[in-house]
């Protein structure tokens, strides 16, 4: 029941927000912050209670029922939701201070947390599909929030991709459920399925749910979504895209049986799709002048790394994907916070325009550097731990495409490093061109606190890498791998 409460609470609080009478300028943000913190506390209580929970509505109509379950992977995702949402709202509090329609913004932003929670603890494919729809439904108004030309363009792209992805996900969910394979428990579901329907439904689900993580051909919206306010980009590129990864993980490890897929052509097809997306994202990253959009393209690459690791169908691959989900979320959220601050405080977007402004925004650029180095995989930051897990897992399987994936991931280290350094070094070393009377200031207290929280989380993830990795391996064992 605690799980259901965690799903419903943010949605209800978000829905109630516009109804509250007579508010000051900060009221909606504070309401949202309170609600999110409350949900986060409940989530952490559920995560650390240590019990595997199950909950089902309409169980009689199985497989068409609403099911929630809490297992190892769900715990990780929910814990991540719990620690990322409060700093994101705190950051939004500063960013959206002068924006129009704050009520609506914070309502959707709060409600999106409910969708994320539902994704994490969905117990069967149909519930997961519902979570997917809720995630998209909450994301769309956030993307078009500013209602200017750019936002509307971005929201159209998002809507088209979401519709196509949703259809594919529907095919997958309905198909597997019809064969009695909808539950995330290969041992318990008794359904049988032929090879051809398996391939069709699996690929549909991989692409459909993978849309949230920006898999080809659904990569474009991820870059365009950066035209939305910074807190929204941060959300879409961390928790919303993580939802896609969790969904694909459920599909590959909960519905299909990893042992049967490993080594077959279907595995190669999944690997190729993910590798192609990774290469595409990394190349687009280097060809874009806009810093925020470069970071967005790097997301496309990084989520594909997780998809590559998931497509390995090994315990190591699963561990690596989840580990990278964790480290990438922290780094990427921090990076989007920083670009958001830079845009708000200096109105600068391209690499060239940022020359010399590092000294005027020292906190922002310090965090940008640390987060960027983590994303690149610089030891001892958490990104190195996850990237080492990713590459080692790919190498240890020994197939041709697995090796290609490992090399692509190693090369991405160079590309990400170039991406980060080309911003950071000129920003700190060169002299800025300031317009008359222009004065550059660093961010305010709320955003600084949000950045500090993320840095503390990165430090914790690095220091606790050992125990964390063991927990992740336990997730793999829980699924019968390793």
């Amino acid at each position, binding site marked *: 029941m605690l799980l259901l409460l965690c799903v419903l609470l943010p949605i209800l609080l978000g829905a109630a927000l516009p109804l509250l009478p007579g508010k000051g300028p900060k009221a909606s943000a504070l309401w949202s912050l309170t609600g999110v913190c409350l949900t986060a506390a409940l989530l952490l209580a559920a995560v650390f209670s240590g019990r595997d929970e199950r909950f089902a509505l309409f169980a009689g109509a199985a497989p068409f029922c609403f099911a929630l379950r809490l297992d190892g992977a769900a715990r990780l995702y929910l814990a991540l939701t719990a620690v990322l949402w409060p700093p994101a709202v705190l950051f939004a509090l500063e960013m959206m201070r002068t924006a129009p329609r704050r009520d609506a913004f914070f309502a959707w932003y709060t409600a999106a947390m409910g969708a994320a929670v539902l994704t994490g603890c969905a117990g069967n494919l149909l519930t997961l599909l519902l979570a997917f729809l809720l995630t998209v439904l909450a994301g769309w108004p956030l993307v078009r929030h500013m209602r200017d030309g750019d936002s509307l363009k971005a929201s159209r792209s998002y809507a088209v991709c979401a519709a196509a992805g949703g259809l594919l996900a529907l095919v997958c969910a309905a198909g597997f459920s019809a064969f009695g394979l909808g539950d995330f428990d290969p041992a318990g579901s008794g359904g049988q399925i032929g090879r051809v329907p398996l391939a069709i439904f699996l690929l549909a689900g991989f692409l459909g749910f993978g849309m949230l993580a920006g898999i080809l051909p659904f990569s474009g919206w991820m870059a365009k979504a950066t035209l939305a306010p910074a807190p929204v980009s941060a959300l879409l590129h961390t928790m919303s895209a993580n939802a896609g990864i969790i969904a694909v993980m459920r599909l590959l490890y909960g519905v299909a049986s990893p042992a049967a897929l490993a080594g077959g052509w279907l595995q190669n097809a999944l690997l190729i799709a993910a590798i192609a997306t990774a290469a595409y994202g990394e190349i687009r990253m280097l060809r874009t002048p806009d810093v925020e959009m470069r970071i967005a393209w790097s997301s496309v690459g990084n989520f594909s790394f997780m998809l590559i690791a998931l497509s390995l169908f090994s315990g190591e691959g699963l561990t690596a994907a989840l580990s990278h989900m964790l480290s990438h979320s922290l780094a990427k959220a921090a990076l989007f916070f920083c670009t958001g601050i830079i845009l708000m405080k200096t109105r600068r977007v391209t690499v060239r325009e940022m020359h010399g402004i590092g000294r005027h925004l020292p906190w922002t650029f310090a965090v940008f550097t640390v987060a960027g180095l983590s994303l690149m995989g*610089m*030891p001892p930051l958490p990104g190195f*731990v996850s990237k*080492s897990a990713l590459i080692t897992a*790919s190498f240890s399987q020994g197939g041709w495409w697995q090796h290609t994936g490992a090399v692509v991931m190693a090369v991405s280290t160079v590309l990400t490093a170039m991406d980060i350094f080309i911003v950071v*070094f000129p920003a700190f*070393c060169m002299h800025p061109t300031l317009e008359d009377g222009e004065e550059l200031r660093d961010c305010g207290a709320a955003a600084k606190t949000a950045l500090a929280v993320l840095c503390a989380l990165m430090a914790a993830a690095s220091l606790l890498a*050992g125990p964390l*990795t063991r927990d992740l391996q336990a997730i793999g064992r829980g699924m019968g791998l390793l």
Partner: protein
Amino acid sequence: MEQMRLLLPVAVPIALGLLGRALRVRGKALRVYSVCASVLGGVLAALCALWPEGGEMTLRWTDMLSLTLRVDGLSRVYLLLLTLLWPGAALYAAEYLEHSGHTERYTLFYLLTQGVLHALSMSGNLVTFYTFYEAMTVLTVPLVLHNQDREAVAAAMKYLVYSVIGASAALIGIFFIASLGAPGDFAAGVLTGETLAGREGFALAIFFVMLLGFGVKAGMFPFHGWLPTAHPVAPAPASAVLSGVITKMGVLGAARVIYYVAGAERLRGTWVQSALLCLSLITVLMGSTMAFREKKLKKRLAYSSVSQVSYVLFGLFTMTEAGFVGALLHVVFHALMKNTLFMGAGNIIHKTGKTEVDELDGLGRAMPWTYAFFAVASLGLVGIPPTGGFISKWSLAQGALATGLPGAWIGPAALLISAVLTAGYLLSLVIRGCFPGAGTHIPEKCEAGWRMLLPMGAYAVLIVGLGVFSAPLIRYFTALARALM
């Protein structure tokens, strides 16, 4: 707890660097502080190196990744070398940077780098090595872009990009070895035939990529392009240690991969060895030729480093005892000689502002000590007895002949040609400086101060002294080589 002493040479310079920054030490106090701090760091490193039982400490990070510091034979060589070089360049910088800006930042990063280099010398496995290798790259960038003009920033970016490419090439190998379940520890023979079963060919390609990657820092063709750009734009003391010391860390990586991880037996006689030997010889000749043609003094010295560090790599790639000994000797002697040469160039630039080699005629009369030390180092680099350069090159040539490969004579021949070119680009400078010929304008006396001359003089003495009394060094290196092969 007893092993915590290994942390001292790493932690103390880093802590002192940060402390100096936190206390906002400035001006004269900062100059004294930086010299004292780096001397202290160097003494701690030397103590670690000379401590009889070596030592090892491990910090388990995750099940797969652990950070290990261990003092073995090769670590001792590097630690002692750092003790000789790092404080000397600090003393030099105290005078050279006296009237330059940003000395606080320079001191901070100089001391941080010292700690990281000590850690790199003691790294006991690949993950630790990679960790500190990347740290070294990032921390030395501020030394390169010290002047903060457009040229320096561009050079620093180039340095970074090349270095990161090299490090990630090494990274591929580190994770490949990890995926085999081998620990990646620097102990001869960690990779057995069983762990590699069925993937020998792929493993060879991986080792090649790793060695190319570490070769980037050592300026090996085709990834040498950053070196002649980045080293000259740094201030002279930084150029000295970048060329003399930092390039040797790439060499250390290559030595660790060949002799400690892959095992020389596995690579000997394979295409990997042939390809690397070719690349290193190409670099030797190309570097010398480019140095010969270069008119800017510091850039000439940088090209010379490209060539000379590849001598070392060549020695390692021969995978023979004599080659290994020659390589280590040349690590020591080239570090001493190149530091002296860059410091000499720094003296000239500092006192006269001249950067082109054609402007230096007759300058030897004005700066006799600078030119004397410069001449000793030049003779050493050419390889003229009794300097150390002769001993190391002799050993390298022997190593090349001992490989038994077809065309083994090409190695010594290339070394000889390169030595002639070296004489051409260095001794001509000395001769034109000291014996300018009739009718040349002799500049007024403008010798550098004692803080700039003292380290140069000390190194010049060592170049000759260690060359004459080289037996203990050769014995030590030979014992090291025997243990590995």
